[in-house]
Structures are given as C-alpha cells and as structure tokens.
C-alpha cells in the first residue's frame, strides 16, 4: 500500500509542485492550505508523513506542528518542514516545536523523496 503524505502550504504553486512530485513518486497526497485546515484534515486522514510550510495565514507552521504533537493521535507522525536555506533560526524553532526534519526550498523531487524516506518506515 502506498504511503499517504499530508502537505500543508498556503501557496498554490507549492501545493501543485508537491503534488506533482509526490504523485510521481507513488505517494497518496492529501493537501491543506494552512495550519487550521491541516489540523482539520488530520481529523479524518492518517498520513504517514506530513510536510508543512512555516509562513501561513490563520495558523503558521510552528502552531500547526505544536497542534499535531499535542494530540495523541498523530504525535508520532514524522513532520518535515519546508524551509529556505537562510531560515536557520526558523529551522531551530520548528525543531523545538517538534518537527522531525526539513526540506530546503527550492527542492527537487529526488531530495523531497529522500527526505521522506529518511523519516518513514
């Protein structure tokens, strides 16, 4: 059975890129467009891995990660943060909020898939 990835990003471009890359790699893809809708998606979905952006309206990535980690149902799901090279401080904050790892933007599909592989069984 193929793995399910939940992507949380407010940018349509990024969502489309993630979907294209992940579907090509054989994943099921579920998408949400900000932290709030990401948490809503988690009420019905059981993803194997979550990929989230940081800067989002309504609820940002930090808040979203904290939300995922504080609920028993998904606290053990690996979360990868989409970040840019220069966001060292943001990476650190995401990690302390409970992110499993990160993907540096711009990413190529191979990097994306290998990052997922590294955190999923």
């Amino acid at each position: 059975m193929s793995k399910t990835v939940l992507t949380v990003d407010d940018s349509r471009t990024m969502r489309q890129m993630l979907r294209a890359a992940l579907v090509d790699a054989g994943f099921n893809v579920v998408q949400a467009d900000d932290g709030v809708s990401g948490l809503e998606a988690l009420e019905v979905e059981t993803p194997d891995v979550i990929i989230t952006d940081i800067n989002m309206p309504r609820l940002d990535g930090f808040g979203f990660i904290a939300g995922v980690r504080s609920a028993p149902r998904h606290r053990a799901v690996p979360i990868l943060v989409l970040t840019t090279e220069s966001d060292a401080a943001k990476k650190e904050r995401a990690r302390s909020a409970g992110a499993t790892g990160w993907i540096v933007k711009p990413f190529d599909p191979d990097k994306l898939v290998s990052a997922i592989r590294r955190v999923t069984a």
Partner: protein
Amino acid sequence: MASDAIADIKTTFFQECEEQLAELEAGLLALEGGEADLETVNAIFRAVHSIKGGAGAFHLNDLVRFAHAYETTLDHLRSGQISATPAGTKVMLRAADMLADLVRAARDGGAADIARGDGIIEELVALSGAAEESAANDDGDGMDGLDFTPVQVSFDADSMDEAAAAASDAPLSARYVVEFMPKPALYAKANEAGLLLRELARLGEAVVSCDIGGTPLLPDLDPEGAYLRWTVTLPGDVEEAAIREVFEFVADDCDLDIRREGGASPAPTRAAETQNPDILNLLKTLEAEVQAQQAAASAPSPAQPAPERKAAGSSPAAEKPTAAKAEAGKAAAAANAAQATIRVDIDRVDRLVDLIGELVINQAMLAQRVAEAGLGRGSAVATGLDELERLTREIQDSVMAIRAQPVKPVFQRMSRIVREVAEITGKSVHLITDGENTEVDKTVIERLADPLTHMLRNAIDHGIEDPAKRVAAGKPAEGVVRLSALHRSGRIVIEVADDGAGINRPRVKEIAVRKGLVAPDAVLSDDEIDNLIFAPGFSTAESVSNISGRGVGMDVVKRSIQALGGRISISSRPGAGSTFTMSLPLTLAVLDGMVVSVAGQTLVLPLTAIVETLQPSEASVHSFGTSGQVISVRKALTPLIDVGMRLGFRSAPADSLACVAILVESEGGGRSALLVDAIQDQRQIVVKSLEGNYGHVPGIAAATILGDGRVALILDVDTLVAAGQSISLQQPQAA
C-alpha cells in the same frame, strides 16, 4: 515531472504572483494609511516570501535576489526591529512595484531594469540599517546559523589526508565508527533510531551493535525514555559527509560520535553485539517490547510525556491558534469565504455564455413558432413559454454574474501609476479609491486599465497643481485624486475626480482655435469647451511631457470607452478640479435593445441610448438644404437622421411623416432623432461581434440573431449621431 506539468505549475505560479502582488500592495497601502495591524504585516511578508519560494523553484534568479533583499527588510519590520515610517513605506511600495516588474519580466520574457532594482535593494538595506548589524549573522545564507550541523561538516585537512591514505592503501582496513545514543527528544519529534540505522546501512555494509546496558528494569522504565546506545561500523570508503547527513535531522537530539579508525582490528564491541542480518529482528523485538510497555504503562500519564512539555514550553506557538481565533474572527470569515470558491478556466465560462446566448435565441424562435401556430397567449403552451423565458433570463443573469469581477485589481494597479507620475512631476498626490468591490464583466475590466491609466496621468499632470501653487491658492499641498466605481441603473459608473485647477477654458479654446478645431468666432458654452479636450488632435500640454505625451490623447480614451459601449463626460470648476465620469455597460455579451424595421431590414437600437420615441408631424419637421431635416422636440431643433438613407438601404428619402422618430443621446450628450419605419419589439439580445466575424462597418456596432433566425444589425448610435451633427453644421453653409 513531465515538462507540461512544470509548465502548468509555472502558470499557477505567475497567477499566484499576481494575487500576492495585489495583496502586497493592499497591505502596504494599509500600512501607509496607518491601518495596518500585525496580521497585515505578516501578510505582506508572506506575499514576498511566497514569490521568492516559487521563483527559487524555477531558478528565476533576478527575482529571487530581489525578493530576498525585500523579504529581509520586511522580516525586520515584522519583528519590530524597524518601524514603518512614511519614507520607509514609500521605499517598500517602490520595491513592490519593482517586484511586480521582475515577476512580469520573468513571465513575459522581457528584461526588468536590474539597475533600478539594485538601487531599491540599497534603499531597502539602508532601511534595515541598524537592524542589519544584528541580523548580519543570519544573512550569510544560513551556514553560520546552522548550529546543529557544526563545523565538522567540512572535512578538515587531517581527515582529507587520512581519506587519501586510506584510499591508496587498503580501503577495508580503514573504517568509520559511529556511536550514537538517542535522547527522548529524538523520539518525541517522530524520528526513529531504526530508520537512521537503515539509512546508514544504505551507505555501505554496516556492522551494528546495540548496548542495552543502560536500560532500567521494567518498573523504572519510562516508556518514552531513550536507553539504547548504538555502535555502527561502516567501511572506510563511505563519505563522512554522507554519514553526517543521515544524522542531519537529529544531531541535537542524540549524543553522536563519528570517528575514523585506520587499524584492521575489529570494531570495539560492547555487550550484545549483533550482526547486520539480525538487526531487523532485534529492532522488531525491541519495538514490540516498547509498544507492549507503552500500552502497559498508564499511557496518558499526566506527569511528563516529553512532547507535551515541548508544546507547553513553546507557548507563543501553542497559544496562537486560540488567540488568532478570538481576535481575527473577520479574517477567519474571509478565509472561509475564500475556501468556498473554485477556479474555473475562463474558456469554460465563455462557452457557457455562448450556449446561453444560443438558448435565448432558441427560446425566441420557439415563441415565434408558437405564435405562428396560432396558439393564443392564454394557451398552456404560451404560459409555459413565458415561464421558460423567465428562467432563461435568470440563467443568463447568473452566468453573467460568474463573469463579473470586482474592479479592485484595476484600481490597485492605479495606485502605482499615481505614485510614479507624482514622483516624475514632483507633485504630492494622494489617491482615494472607492467602490472597489463593484463588479463588472471581466472583459470590461481588462479593457478599463488603459483608459484609466491615461486619465489618472492626465489628472495629475494637468489637473493637480504644484505644491507651491496649491498652497498659494489656499489648498493643502497634497492633491487628491479620487477614483470611484458604482452601479447605476444597470451600468457601472466610474469617476476620476481631482481637486486641481480645473480646466483652463480660455487656454483650451485658444488651442482649439489654433489647431483649427473650432472657428475663431465660435460661441461655445463652458461644457462645449470642456468637451474639446476629447477632440482628436487636441493636447493641452505646453511642452509634451513624458507623462501625458505618450502619443495618446483624451480622444483615444474616449474612443476606447466608446468601444466598450460606454460614454465619458467631464465636468470642471475652475480652481476646484475636474471630474471625468464614465458610464459602461456591465456586460458586453447582452444588451436590451429596441427592434425596429427600416426599408425591410430589421435593426436593433441599444435601449440605453434611447431617450424617447416621437411621431413626426408636419408641424414639427422642418427641411433645410437639399435633404437636411430637423425635428422640433419641445421647441429644440434636433437633427433628423434617415437611417435607411444613411446606411444605404434606400436611395430616396423616406416620408418622415409615415415614420417613427427615435430620440437618442450619444455619450457626449449630443442628441439626434433617428428616423425608422416602425418599432417591432423591445427585448434582450445576444451581441455577436461583427468585427470579429466580418469586419468593421461604420454606423453598425454588432449583430444579433433574432427569434426567426434572421441576422439583425445593432446600430452604433454614437457614430450616427456624430454624423448627424456634422451634417447639421455643414449643410447650412452648403445651402
């Protein structure tokens, strides 16, 4: 990814850029107006950040570089390191314009003005000023900030030498020994020691051993604790960087030691050594045990599961959802509204519009057939048809509503024009927009930008005075241009009003006389003089400035508005300013028309142009010249235009007394009476472009298909009236 998928994503990216740019500008304007809260600043930042992110994916380097500099300054703004001064906001607005240029250059393949961009980058950096120093260390694009991947990442000289030595003698004799001991935090972040081992095993043949010596007895075991220490031996030809990369995500959450050993002696073993093939079994057993223990231990022990502590520790992030919810109910509502929309390809909507057009025509044909079949209006069929007609009209309105868009995007673009022109002219101008959410058909919106741009340029260049002059005249130094939109009786009315000097009538007349547009001795009303600026070939600029002098005069504005089925008029008060008023149809696809017959032809007159219908009588119609006729309407003489003659349907003038005169008004306010044989009907018709399918015909605006399947031409009232007026002026001279 397939290349067309990438092209698709790129299209999305540029669409999204436009939205982000609009949001950026709206946010900055709110900032400028002092109405910005933290969420606005965040939205501004996100807009630039998103553009940068997407641009990076497509390797749009100029765009990335600029967006990065911009983002850095905005980040300082967001974090409160700098505050939004008026001057600073202006720089940021200019930066937004530059960003828009770069986006469009990237999209359309042109070249943006990189030098200007660099200038703005310098301004942005200057803006960040003091903040820059403290931020300098995270500006080095990350490397110094990555404290969890310490300096060891790079090979130092020794290990390079060693690697070279190892490669030259026996690779097997050298090896890496990796020792790591996860901390509870590693598991709390959903990392897995087993996965790390698997990744290590991918690099080369791995010998893994596990030290379980630190594991306490069951009663003392914290199910979420971490007690195992792993030792992995890897071949010497594996790259150390690759090993470090495996631990990239967890470097802070485990004790890690990676060392290179040159000797051939076996790896230093600890208790319970296991060979590679058995590692999975061991892991499985451990996993099963841990899970069993986890279940056994009262799982939701309130005491201290690590992740919960984490969440509480980072309280700003954890509390944010509640705070955001409580405070930004409006934002949430807006977001919900945004979610309730779908994106549809415009072609599909256009297809639907076309089909509805066919439906309207078909329904009209059906009604005609029913009438021909002799079924009375009271018959069940006729009642059903009425119902169908009502439904058809409703469907039509709904479809038109799909195409309707708020004028906001165009209005937003105008604020940039105002900024630029104000800067070039050295005038201080404030743009106020009103009614931005007024909706109108997409086609109309797209074609509004050019005329509006020109009118605003004109208002600032010619209307608003220099600050010194304004102050001398007792006005505030800053001029105001007001751009507003509203719906009025089935049309959209757009006004461009300035509080400048108003039209300099003596000068306008002087120029018009000099250019031969009016006779030197002509007596003109104020309105007539004002309207001279719409005359072809008229330009008031003393020296052709590079703002208004782009080869476009107000006559072009007028023509483009007319081409949209609109009218434009001006009112001006000396010293108090001028107001240009445009009235446009809400859609170009349907219009309410009066169906008339002329010399056996069926024609349609747009209802909006019609003032009233008259029955010519001997007393009211007066002839002059060879064929000129005027009709007296409430004691005012109005040119009477024989439509059949004008369009060449007949060669001899019609008997005006047997005809109907329709009094029409053009957008300039000029009135004429059109002579037609009879009025047939008044109905909604679907406009079919004649120019697109046939060619331009003077006096004809478009065509439509009637219920009986015949094509009817839609009259271009403005052209007919203009022709009528010129006749009324010329013919007396000829006579």
